[in-house]
């Protein structure tokens, strides 16, 4: 395995790097001497970003820090993909009218969400993590790109978000914000995590652990697993003795992922009720005859049997014991 990995890695990495260096040298030669000031385009209706700078210096003066400045710096993009007009459309009518939103072909504040989406996806459609944006919950509910991204006034270092990511999400998902106020929670407010560690706001592929393509908007771990396993790798397995409910239904069968009033993000304040709600012989289970009922040796009134995980320590999966004792 190691040898094959190393061989493949060397081949797959060395060749692209050499190719990249060659291509970059060629590109640098091509753009050497070119100025960042974009030339006025020859295409009809386009006036070039210099014309925009005259009236919008507050936007243009800092625009070199914007990811979209690449289109100007490149010097190779066609007018309809360059600078201001790359997003807002040809500016000749706007200039001729001496301003006014209605003369801007793509004035985002006047556009319908789908129009905004189409405009942005004109360049960003092909990115793998946006492959499901057309059927995402956000799109279905009229949340367009500009609902979350601020192209000209972003306070974030990456992704041009309109606010810090958690604030952005909280501004609509107030109930989730309340869950992160609870004593047991993932450390989003402390800055250790971000919502996008687990969620893909652009829409996600169907989860492999839930029926009905639920939960939605979850950014899966690379093995198509529950997002929790990106960090909690020790719960990943494979195990000889999987806990079927965990492997098939996912972590949420026992845990609430954002925050909980109960320890360890559990759905119940004590473990035995959590376990007994499934292990009561009811339901189908993987053996057709109901989920196993607890052992007759257990006496629930004995405190040691109230702490199920004090003995069943490997509750997420075990290699040595079918009852998860080691």
């Amino acid at each position, binding site marked *: 395995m190691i040898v094959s990995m190393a061989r493949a890695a060397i081949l797959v990495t060395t060749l692209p790097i050499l190719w990249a260096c060659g291509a970059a040298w060629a590109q640098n030669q091509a753009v050497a001497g070119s100025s960042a000031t974009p030339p006025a385009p020859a295409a009809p209706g386009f006036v070039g970003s210099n014309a925009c700078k005259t009236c919008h210096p507050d936007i243009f003066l800092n625009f070199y820090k914007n990811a979209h400045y690449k289109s100007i710096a490149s010097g190779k993009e066609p007018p309809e993909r360059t600078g201001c007009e790359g997003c807002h459309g040809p500016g000749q009518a706007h200039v001729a009218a001496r301003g006014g939103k209605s003369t801007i072909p793509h004035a985002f504040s006047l556009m319908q969400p789908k129009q905004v989406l189409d405009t942005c996806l004109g360049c960003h459609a092909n990115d793998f993590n946006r492959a499901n944006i057309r059927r995402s919950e956000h799109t279905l509910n009229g949340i367009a790109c500009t609902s979350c991204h601020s192209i000209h006034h972003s306070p974030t270092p990456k992704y041009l978000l309109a606010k810090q990511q958690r604030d952005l999400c909280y501004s609509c998902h107030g109930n989730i914000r309340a869950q992160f106020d609870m004593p047991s929670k993932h450390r989003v407010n402390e800055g250790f995590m971000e919502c996008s560690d687990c969620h893909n706001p652009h829409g996600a592929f169907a989860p492999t652990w839930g029926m009905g393509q639920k939960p939605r908007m979850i950014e899966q771990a690379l093995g198509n697993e529950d997002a929790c396993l990106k960090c909690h790798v020790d719960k990943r397995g494979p195990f000889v003795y999987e806990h079927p409910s965990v492997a098939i239904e996912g972590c949420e069968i026992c845990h609430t992922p954002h925050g909980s009033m109960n320890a360890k993000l559990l759905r119940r304040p004590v473990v035995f009720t959590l376990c007994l709600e499934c292990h009561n012989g009811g339901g189908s289970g993987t053996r057709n005859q109901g989920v196993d009922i607890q052992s007759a040796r257990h*006496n629930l009134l004995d405190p040691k049997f109230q702490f199920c995980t004090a003995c069943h320590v490997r509750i997420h999966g075990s290699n040595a014991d079918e009852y998860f004792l080691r």
Partner: protein
Amino acid sequence: MGRRLLLLLATIGVLEAQQVVAPTPEQVGSARGDNVGDYNITQSFELGYRFKDVFGDEGMYRSAVDMGNGLRLLSSSFSINSKDGHGHYFDEITLNTIGLGNDNYQAAILRIQKNRLYRYDMTWRLNAYFVPGLTVAGGEHLEDTIRRIQDHDLTLLPQSHYRFHLGYSRNTENGPALTTAQEFDASGVGFPVFENVKRQWNEFRVGADLDFAGFRLTLQRRWDFYKDDTPLSSDGVQVSPEPGDQSVLQQFQRSQPVHGSNPGWLGNLFTKRRLWGVNARLTYNSGTGNFALDELALGIGMFGTAASRQIAVGGDANRPDLAGDFSVSLYPSERLTVVNNTSISSDRIDGQSSYTEADDGLDLGTTIYFRYLADRLVTNSTDVNYRVNDWFGIYGGYHYSDRLVSTIEGQGLPAFANSFSSSLYQVSNHENAGAVGLRLRPLKPLTINLDGEKGRASYPLTPISASDYHTINGRVMYRLKNLQLSTSYKQYYNLNPPMSFSNFSSHSRSYNANASWTPRSWFALDASYSKQHLDTLDGLAFFSALTPLSASQLQTGFSSLYISNIHSGNMGVRLALGKRADLYAGYTITKDTGDGRSAAAPPGATPLQTLLDSVQTFPLTYHSPLARLSIRIAPKIRWNAGWQYYDYAEQFNLLGYDQNFHAHIGYTSVLWSF
């Protein structure tokens, strides 16, 4: 104008976060930075000292808050940008950090890129993870570990038609922990044992994107390697706390290394045309885990006789996993989008384990266990999204899922020929769900969204899985430049059909209201309220002895009722005092009122009913006021100080454990930019 708008946006952003007293969010220095040659540089650092004072259960404090004393680089921000987009080695470097030094939550985010040539992104995070001896584990499971996570991604030729990706991720967890080991007797206690957690996960990624003929092909190859070399050993001599149980664990050691890997492939083909689009994805991963376990326990058994136990286990587990998605999107008109998605996944886990045990010197022999768990899932969904006019849109969807879970359980005794036996079980579940929603925008700042979903599953896997369920969601939002009002309602009801002892039902409802108001650049107010209700009812079946000396009997007449009513409030006020000082005051409260009862269990109930009643509800109040003052003492320097108070108060001490605490957290810092 632009700068004022930026400040306004930043201000709103500050207020909408759940508050943690530090780092200080106020800005200092010029947003435009300083020009050096062909580059522009902005940077700021906040260096400060945190202090804490905790009363009550410090373990629970560390679990819920975990801010410590000491000097910190509370936050830093650095960016350098090429002004013409043609830097020699790079066009952009940004580095942002929080908590470096000694905070229990630390992070650094770095990006370096040169247009057209490369882009490198790095994220590094550290979390000191502390779990006290919690009530859920009888006060015995404790963890004090540090988790470090890092991700590196390098993209070559990011603006080209062919891009190459290299990636590396690492996740480690190290530190001491206490766990439990159940030894000697099948009904014995779990003895506390020491665990030295050593886990490590490394992932390597290589991939490429290729654009051709309007398609984008993405290929990725990845390898990850997992190692868990956590040893367990005696935590001193442990005596059973059970009356009448003479068990003593005198010596204990267990090694249980697990080494595994998950190599995988990902391929994706995407295209978007004017009237249609297609996305196809296929992934394959082949996880393996090789393990061994060597355990020795010596001591005294439940009835006072010398006891020993030796266990040796070895084997491996495998998980080939295949998943594919195929989406077709149609855009027949400007107003209509139709997306059909079909997903398949096949997850097969098979493992073999050789288990050998010797109790009190008696060799019980070796058993070979075999387990196979397969999950085949096919889903198809169709979503239709139609905009009727500029202020009204509707959407609907139909989702179908077909899942087959197969289990094979087998075992054999090598000492006996032809002793291998196995059983096969299969469970098939079909779910049909329909969803419909509408969105209204009667006024430009006003949006209204309503949607609902109804689903039914034929044979859910567990008694609490989604069976006959519906959801209702509603959201109203009113947004102006300096005022945002929103309210939402969410409902999820699930009812499982009666089966044996089970008849599960759950109802969850959440109500939420938020307001953010920034009437002046020097004043901002943010407030929110949320109520989350949950009630569940499930039939129980368990064993219990009704009197101390009687044998356990099956109990079936009881139910597991759980009622939670959580009220959450959050308010923050920001005042800019002149041009020099910013004052922020905030308050957060989360209160579970349970079902309103005043005692965990009514007096006079039987011991069993008392136990079940005492866990039906968990009233708890957790609140935290805070105040922060930030003073600009020079154009590029601010001095900051803040205080935050945490109070955690359970109304009923769950299972007799008192975990309540209150704590004062403070900090003072200097924030400067240069």
